[in-house]
């Protein structure tokens, strides 16, 4: 996908800061997944550059709660970006844009494997890691 960057558009650093605020994972942890570029492009493609810019600005002002977000679509976009990071799936946006264009989908096998939800309790997405025969007998590792 080709993205034409324009003035005022959310930068990679800003997208990372936004994602970090929404997910609770540090920018370094997020960068470690290798998904930053793909996810930013996907959000712009699915939601549009302007809504992303507005959300970035809201969060940059220190708002990361539903009460800080403006109208329904802004909160929905925040939820979608968090879900993208946590699961590797894009949930689709209902609100003002055409919903039939926006069904939910798994971004890629890699995105599934990098889902953050598994890391919150020290686990791995099923089928993506081979921790070894009998590894499941031991107490769980500390969360990442």
């Amino acid at each position, binding site marked *: 996908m080709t993205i034409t960057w324009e003035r005022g558009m959310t930068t990679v650093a800003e997208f990372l800061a936004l994602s970090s605020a929404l997910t609770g994972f540090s920018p370094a942890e997020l960068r470690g997944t290798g998904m930053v570029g793909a996810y930013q492009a996907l959000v712009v493609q699915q939601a549009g550059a302007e809504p992303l810019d507005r959300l970035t600005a809201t969060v940059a002002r220190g708002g990361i709660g539903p009460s800080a977000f403006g109208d329904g679509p802004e909160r929905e976009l925040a939820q979608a970006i968090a879900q993208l990071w946590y699961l590797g799936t894009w949930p689709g946006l209902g609100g003002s844009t055409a919903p039939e264009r926006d069904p939910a989908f798994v971004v890629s096998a890699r995105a599934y494997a990098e889902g953050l939800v598994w890391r919150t309790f020290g686990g791995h997405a*099923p089928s993506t890691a081979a921790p070894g025969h009998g590894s499941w007998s031991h107490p769980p590792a500390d969360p990442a």
Partner: protein
Amino acid sequence: MTAPGGRRWDVIVVGAGFAGSLVAKVLGDRGWRVLVLEAGAGATDAGPDRALEAYRTALVKSPNSPYPTSPSAPSPDVPDLTGRPDGGYRAHGYLVQRGPLPYASGYLRANGGTGLAWTGLAPRMHPEDFRAGDFGHGRNWPIGYQDLEPYYRAAEHELGVAADADEQREAVGLPFPDGYRFPMRAIPRSHLDHVMAEALDGRSVRDREARVRLRVTTTPHARNGVPDPGHDGGAGYRPDGGRCVGHASCVPICPSGAKYTPLRTQARWAPSVALVTDAVVTRVRIAANGRAGGVDYLAHDGRTHTVEAELVVLAAHAIENAKLLLLSDAANRSDQVGRNLMDHPVLLTWGLMKHQIGPYRGPGSTSGLEGFRFGPARARRAPFRVEIGNWGWTWALGPPDLRVAELLRTGGPDGRGLFGAELRRTLGDRVGREFAFQFEMEQDADPANRVTLDPRHRDRLGLPRPVVHYDLSDWVKRGIAAAKGVSDQLMGLLGAEDRTRFEPGPAWPGYFEHEGRPYAYRAAGHGAGTHIMGDSPATSVVDQWQRCWDHSNLYAVGCGSMPTVATSNPSLTMAALALRSADRMHQDLLARHRPIRLKRAFEGADLP
């Protein structure tokens, strides 16, 4: 006996899943020319990498999600059902459903069959399970445990079962020959199993007036672990495929090849066995003398082919076997074809442990509680096997995705969503403590639970789709209620937070009420009973060899033959039955002919 062009075979096997692949192996090894016709696509054509990619990118990771499906041979899958808001259900897949409750299992029409997606648990049936009719519910088998025992061992060798014979003898009550050792040592218990054992072993729970003693018991797996050098009288065992390394995706796909699938048996087929995929059998040809002459099938090219053989073996899954017999107007003197459809309805209960237990690791279940499978209580209510679920709430409520989505939308102090560090902390705390119990209920053979064909509903090839009428008897519902009572006590002994809650709605097509209380079931994919085995042609479809009473050279093999589905996962029993029947097929064939490629070494062999 083989016509030019290879159009006449010794044996035609319909279906390249568990039973069909095993039968073809035994008969091929004995020199017979075997043609295996598989309706579905060749699952290996696309390769395991493609299947893994399909699974990882599937939004709904259903049992069939990794596997290529054929539009000509549709398969039912779990998402075909949705519950209605006020109870009841809707079915919108391949199976037409007309019962008060849904038949909630899928199966897979592909090379390897449902044996690609199966969970890989391989417990034996208990000797008592063959005499279920003595307890007043279901039927007795025409054979007993001892008749099947040598074939259980043969199946455990072929599948490569990892288990501890001493533990199975003591905790389950299974008789084994002295000194028997499984091919591999038991698969290690999960950390959750250890936590459970600490809290439960030696305690007991009440089931009405009786008390049942608890013992966390390791489950046999057809999954590669550590080979036991003592197997096979000291010959040991060399597994095919990798060792289980904990991918935690056994259903529906094992990336390391540690789980047995029928493709492993196919790789061991003799050259006299041929496989054709995308070959949808439409009819068994029955001659005027009542013998099966061969089958018709629709091939990939859209043309109908006829193949002939001495012996025809239907091994296409319980529901597809019934469909084929009905389409062929065959084997139905007893009027039992398609009837007695059984499954394992599964009551799921779920909760949060006090501490992190590391869910979503290793095989889906590594241990269970066996004490509810036997004894006089089964006269009053369905018996059940309790699986300890290692994969959190996946089967009950879906994967953690739904918990993430829920917290994002309705979490937090104001119920409007949770973000950031608090989201991360809350998810880790909760998902890391998820566990479940899976109560697999025996279902009794009821002639009213049946598969029929209705010409108004046809698939893409114009074949009538199976119409299913399914319900749970009060005996099963009493079993489910008893299981819930056991769950309540287990949760108490564990000090766990019980989060079980059944309510009508899309996620629970199997919702029902019993004596004023809400319940819901899912299903284990263990369809059985549609060509039931018995000791009389008046009341059963196949004899003890799975040979149709009405046609001396037509066999119907698989779980469809089982008179009771018992409480054990049925694949191992299906495999043992298939191996036993294959011996009989060999005798039938010998009685008419000698194999064409009789090997010299074979001539002095010890024939059964």
